[in-house]
Structures are given as C-alpha cells and as structure tokens.
C-alpha cells in the first residue's frame, strides 16, 4: 500500500504541472488583458489614459517580464499559498475572496452527496434484489429520466414550485451555519436537493449494477447455503462489497458536483466558489478566475487521488496491477 501511495503521489506532479500550464497560458490568450481592465477603471475614475500609466500598471502587475518568468513567479507564489491580488477589489487578495466562498460550496456539495446517497442506496439495492419487479422498473425510469434532465432545470423547478404552491421562497442573503444553523439549513436544503436528486440517478445505476454482480457471486451463494437469512446475506455479505464501485463514482463525479454548485449558487444567490468564478468572468477579473480554476482543479485531482487510494484499500488487486 505504501508503495502504491508514493507512486500515485508522484504521478500527480506531472498532472498538476500540466494543469497549471494550461490555466496560465489560457488566461494569456484572453482578448484584452488585466491592464486594459485597470486602464478602463482609471478612465472611468476620470484619469487620463497615458502610455506611461499603462507601462506603470504593466510593471506593477509584473506583466513586463517574459511569459515563462511570469509563469514561474505565479507557480512559486501559488505553492506558498499566494494566488495574487484581486483585480476588481484593490485591497483584497484572490485567496481572501476564495476563503470565504469555499465553506458555502463545500456545504452544498456535502449535503448534495448525502441526499443523493439517501436516495440511491435504498433504491439501487431494492432494484437489484427485486430485479425486473415494479420497483426495479421504477428505479430505472427515475435513473434514466434523471440523467436526461439538466440540473439547472431541476434547480429552477425546485425553486419555483414551492413559491407557487405555498408562496414560499428560500430566504435570500447567506447565513453562516455557525451563526444560525437552522436558518442555514433551510437555505441550503433546496439547492443541495437539486444537485442531489440529479446526482442520485448516476449513483443509483452504479449501486444497482454492482449489487447485481455481487448477488451472483459464489460467496453469496455459500452464505445462503449456510442457512443465513436473506437479510444477513444482503446487509453483511453483499452490500459491503457492492459499495466499492459506487465509491469510485463519487470520486469521479466530484466534477459534476462542482458544476452543480455553479448552477445552484447562481439560482439561489449563494456566495460560493461558483458564483465567485462566474462574477470574476463578468468583471474580467482574470487573477481571480485563474486562482479559482487552479484551486478547483487541484481539489478535483486530490479527491480523485483519495478515491483511488480508498478503492485500492478495499480491493487489493488494484494495488498490484
């Protein structure tokens, strides 16, 4: 296991290197760079736009140096936790903006995950046990249907229906969990449910097919032959092994969860990383955008690594292949 972990950690380095290269050079292609944005602000403030001013801003931002030097300076700082300054807000850093947004997105993602598992595991297991029964067909219809409805549609419907039926809208304006847990949960339940509902269809499919496979395994037949009750066989023997595949799915689908937070944060006006990223696009704050994208992809790579390690822990065959 130790060797496997080391190998995986080493493989992560080239991946993160390519990610940082892509992020950095993609941002350099953007039509109109950070200097234009600042010059625009200066012009709006009533100042004259002179070539001297432009050169001054360029030097301040370090944009007068060659691209590869800029890249190494940026990566060097990023490794020390410094992602640069926000271009939109003079006295804030990229990280200070991100730090307040992360808990919001994290809470949505975790709650969405819990909701999706609460739907997917029971339905997936029942669907596999009673294969080709009405509950199996129902679960399969829900799962194929769920895959076909984009999450922004689910989120839109989930916010407008309570408004029509009961005249109830989730409270706007973000409340932190630590200030008022009740109000916070009320506010987060709908956005999380929107992602969770959609996400459960993928998970349900996976739980079902992996449960079906396990139920046909020899050791399950042995357990039944020993005279164990159906319940014990399913809970103690089958379910445990059937959960391995869905665990990896959660890892690979973290990208889907991140995409989901972008959408619900927009619809429900929650100040998370997704909102921050979309705002940075509309405000042309490329420092912020660059920092956010680097942060999100690093999280993505890390979560995938952790999932792979968990998978290898459960299934020793992976480690030795």
């Amino acid at each position, binding site marked *: 296991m130790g060797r496997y972990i080391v190998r995986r950690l080493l493989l992560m380095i080239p991946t993160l290197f390519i990610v940082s290269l892509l992020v950095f050079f993609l941002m350099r292609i953007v039509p109109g760079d950070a200097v234009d944005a600042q010059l625009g602000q200066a012009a709006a403030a009533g100042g004259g736009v002179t070539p001297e001013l432009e050169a001054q801003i360029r030097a301040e931002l370090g944009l007068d140096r060659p691209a590869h030097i800029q890249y190494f300076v940026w990566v060097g700082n990023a490794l020390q936790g410094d992602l640069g300054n926000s271009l939109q807000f003079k006295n804030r850093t990229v990280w200070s903006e991100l730090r307040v947004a992360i808990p919001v997105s994290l809470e949505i993602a975790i709650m969405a995950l819990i909701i999706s598992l609460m739907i997917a595991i029971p339905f997936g297991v029942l669907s596999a046990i009673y294969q080709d029964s009405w509950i199996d067909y129902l679960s399969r219809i829900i799962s194929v249907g769920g895959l076909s409805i984009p999450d922004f549609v689910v989120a839109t419907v989930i916010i407008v229906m309570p408004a029509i039926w009961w005249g109830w809208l989730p409270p706007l304006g973000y409340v932190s969990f630590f200030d008022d847990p009740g109000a916070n949960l009320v506010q987060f339940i709908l956005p999380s449910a929107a992602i969770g509902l959609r996400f459960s269809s993928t998970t349900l499919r996976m739980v079902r097919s992996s449960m079906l496979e396990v139920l046909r395994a020899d050791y399950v037949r042995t357990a039944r032959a020993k005279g164990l009750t159906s319940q014990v066989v399913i809970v103690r023997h089958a379910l445990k092994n059937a959960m391995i595949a869905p665990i990896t799915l959660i890892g690979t689908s973290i990208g889907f969860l991140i995409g989901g937070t972008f959408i619900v944060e*927009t619809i429900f006006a929650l100040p998370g990383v997704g909102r921050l990223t979309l705002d940075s696009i509309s405000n042309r704050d490329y420092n912020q955008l660059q920092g956010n994208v680097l942060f999100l992809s690093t999280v993505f790579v890390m979560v995938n690594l952790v999932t792979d390690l968990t998978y290898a822990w459960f299934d020793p065959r992976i480690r030795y292949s």
Partner: protein
Amino acid sequence: MREILTEVRDVGRLKGAAAPFALVWGWLGGFWSFSKAKPLGGISALIILVMAVAAIFAPLITPNDPFTIFFGSSFASPGHVPEGGRTMILGSDAVGRDFFARVVYGARISMIVGITSVFIGLAAGVAIGLASAFYGGRIDLFLQRVVDGLMAFPALVLALVIVTVMGSGIVFAGAQLNVILAIAIILVPLAARVVRGTALSVKENTYVDAAKALGASDLEIMARHILPNITHAVIILGATFIGAAIIIEATLSFLGIGTDITQPSWGNMIAGARSRFEAEPRLLWTPAIAMSLTILGFNLLGDALRDVWDPRLRGT
C-alpha cells in the same frame, strides 16, 4: 443493426430509379427489427428523428419567424394572432416573439452544437487514443499526461474558461464556435481514454501482426485494421456524448455565457422564463421538456446500442 447493414449492401446491387426507394425501405425494415428487439431503442430513435426534423425543417414548421418582434404582443397567450403575423401556437415571449417558433428553432441550435462538437471531439479523441495505443512507449506516456491534465478540470469549469478565452466570434446558424470547441475539448480526453483502451486489446490480434508482416504502413494498419474494430465503441460514445453536449450548451447559455441571448437556445429560454414562471409556466415547461426529451433520446439510444453490440454488459 446487422440487418440494416445487409439490407444496405443488397441495395447497392440494385440499379436505376428503384435504388433510393429500396434503400429507404431497407432502412425502415432495419429500424423495425431494431425496435422489436429494443423497444426503448426504437422510442429513442423516434424522438431523435422528430427533433432532427424540427431542426432541419424549422422554417417550414413554424408559422412565424422566431426573431420577429410583434409589438404589443408580449406574453400573449397560446392561439393569439398578432398584427401582421400568423397564429402563435404557444403564444409569445417577453418581447413578443412567437414562442413555438423559438422552441422549434431551439432544436436546431442544440442539434448543431451537439453533433458538431461531438464530431470534433471524437475525431481528435480517436486520433489521440489510436496513436497512444499503437505506438505506446514515450508517445503514449506523453499523450496520456496531456489527457490527464485535461481531465483534471471539472467539465463545466473547463468549458467556462475556454468560452471566455475564445470570445464569441464566429456564429453559424445561431451556434457559436467557441461553445462548440469548448464542448469538443471536454470530450477529447474522455474519448481518447476509451479508444486507447479498446484499441490496445484490438492491437494484440494476430491479423495486426499479419498486416505488419505484409509490409502495411502504420497509418494503414490503424485505419484499416484497428479503426473498423473500434467503431462500435466510438458510436456508443457518440450517442451519450451528444446528450452531454446538449446539456453543457444549455447550461452555459443558462449561466449567460453560452449562446447569444437573442438566439433561441433552450438554455436561454429557461433562464428567461424564471422570473415570470407563475404567470407564464409554459415558457419554462416547453423548452425544458423539449430539451430533456432530446437528451433522453440520445441516452436511451446509447444504452440500446451498447446492449446490441456489447453482450457482456447486457442487463446491467
């Protein structure tokens, strides 16, 4: 599907005016036997056909132009006849454009974006995957790191960045090149990975060695001996990818950075319908249902094709 192919081959031998009719007849027969074996696959093919007809013949189907603004007709109810126009089957939207026409034209944008982006993404993915599997060694190692790097971005985030970086420059029938390329780039690593895996196993076959012994060039082996054996995997991928591509286009449009706001994209329509949902629910439901049905069609088609072509996965 095999039936379709044999029928098509038979038709090839027919001569003269009968050939096109026989071809269509053959396709219908193939479709019928496919639907009998896979009812869900038949339904999906029908849905896709309806949407394709809507997309291609949009100008003939819709009574009014989707861009014409009828003044004084904003939020008109279904059946309204505007001054200088024809009956609005689904009424009009906020600025007085025929909503039915916009929903039908929405199929056009979704289909163009879906099909072109998947085509580009698959073509690049197949090229990378094939080269990676065939040459192995350093080329494989390098290409796989690039694939890893692209896959390290959450899909929507990568799409956002590419759309922003490229800017909306070139527009074709309402579909924007930056959106198409952004979606294609997301699909490339996914396709490359699947193609590489499949091609690796095909490469081990003795006929590949035989071709090599006969002096076939690398390109010839890849194109004539490996590629035909992975087409099934690629087509299955393509069907599911189109569903995903339609979702991404609509999501980008919904977030306000995809298809131009004046264009009738389903994502744009749903975003616009939110504020007036209580009074005008049809503005939300019609595009939402049209879009979900289209995506469902491609997802079901992918599943049915997988069942037919890959018996190992049957029933899972």
